[in-house]
């Protein structure tokens, strides 16, 4: 069974780029366009990993992770956050909310795929 990964980003270009890269590495990918939709998918499905943007309309990636961790039962799936350059505060609040790792934009899809492989191999 391939690992299932959820990609949450309001930017369709980035969503598709990340999905294409991960699918080519053999993962099964589902996508959501905002934090609310991402949270709903994470609650109702089982994923091996979630990759989420921080800044999204409605619910931010950090808030989505916070709600995932405080859900009943908690959703403990690893999460990689995509953050903008020089947003230390996002990274700090992301880790406080239970984020596993972060990747800074502009990002290298190859590097992201390597991080994904590393986390899934743990």
């Amino acid at each position, binding site marked *: 069974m391939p690992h299932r990964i959820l990609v949450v980003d309001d*930017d369709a*270009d*980035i969503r*598709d*780029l990340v*999905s*294409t*890269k991960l699918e*080519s590495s053999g993962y099964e990918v589902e996508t959501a366009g905002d934090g609310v939709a991402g949270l709903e998918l994470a609650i109702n499905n089982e994923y091996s990993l979630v990759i989420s943007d921080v800044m999204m309309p409605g619910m931010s990636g950090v808030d989505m992770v916070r709600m995932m961790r405080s859900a009943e039962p908690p959703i403990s799936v690893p999460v990689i956050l995509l953050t903008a350059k020089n947003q230390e505060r996002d990274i700090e609040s992301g880790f406080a909310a239970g984020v596993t790792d972060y990747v800074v*934009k*502009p*990002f*290298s*899809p*190859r*590097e992201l795929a390597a991080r994904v492989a590393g986390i899934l191999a743990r």
Partner: protein
Amino acid sequence: MLVSWDVLAVAVVVLVVACVLALTAVVLIKAARHAGERRRAVHDEAIRTRIMMLAVAEDEALAKLESELASTTGALGEHVENTLLRMIPEVRGDVRGAMIRVLAARGLLSRSLDRIHSRGAIQRAAAAELLGILGGREVIGPLTAALQDKSLEVRLVAARALGVAARPEAGGHLVDALSLTSGIPHSVAATALLNLPEQDPAVYIEGLRDRDAGIRYGSAAVVGLLLMSEAADALFDCMVAERGREGASDVVIAACARSLGRLGHKPAISELADISCSSAASSSVRQAAGEALKAMPGAEARDVRRRVIEHADADVRRILVDA
């Protein structure tokens, strides 16, 4: 006051016509937007998968894909360009390289190099922005020339674009753009400078000795943010010289002090102590010197802080008491 029925009728007719025109405009705008979205969807259907495959393809398959995207013509070709231009700022590494190669092969680089000499400032600014995204050695000359453009908008976009292109050879030109006469906001030129890799300290050392206070100020601030220890002595000299200068600039002295604090440049401790207690210095300069003293490591700095606390004003004392 009485209003005649005729005037009232005309007003009502005018109001109705205005409403109808506004409604028509709204409907037309919405229709145009929908048509645009439909067109984009059709183009996406035709080519989006191939664009996304730039993140996956390798070697011969990548070369073939790049050539295919480069030779796509008409509205679909424009769609390829727009999609890639949207995506490039978000990615780096080999995918970014492949996207830029496609755009260059489509002639976007040569078109932008031509357009940066257009008559219209809007066209020149748009070309400067594209050149920044496309990057590479060949864009630096035209972009640094655009820093002298007669239009402030073009100069500003060119400074930002040099930061995006991120080539070290742009450093000296961006330091010059810190000049008070350039019109480019300091924050724009300084942010662009912070983006450049492998910077030459000599450029900043020269900037710290410049006659223009804007260049001295910007150089002082950036040296500290980049933690450029090679320029620490020049930074200290700049601060001392500024204090003795006729018409000394408070912002230059404060920027030097802050950066010396960031660098932890110990030879500056006694001068910073002197500034932080000086009644001749402004309150903001004394506080900047106090902050720098607070950041200084070592026993000497600790002793000096103790002495300064006894003589400094309340604001500086408050800064140092927390140290």
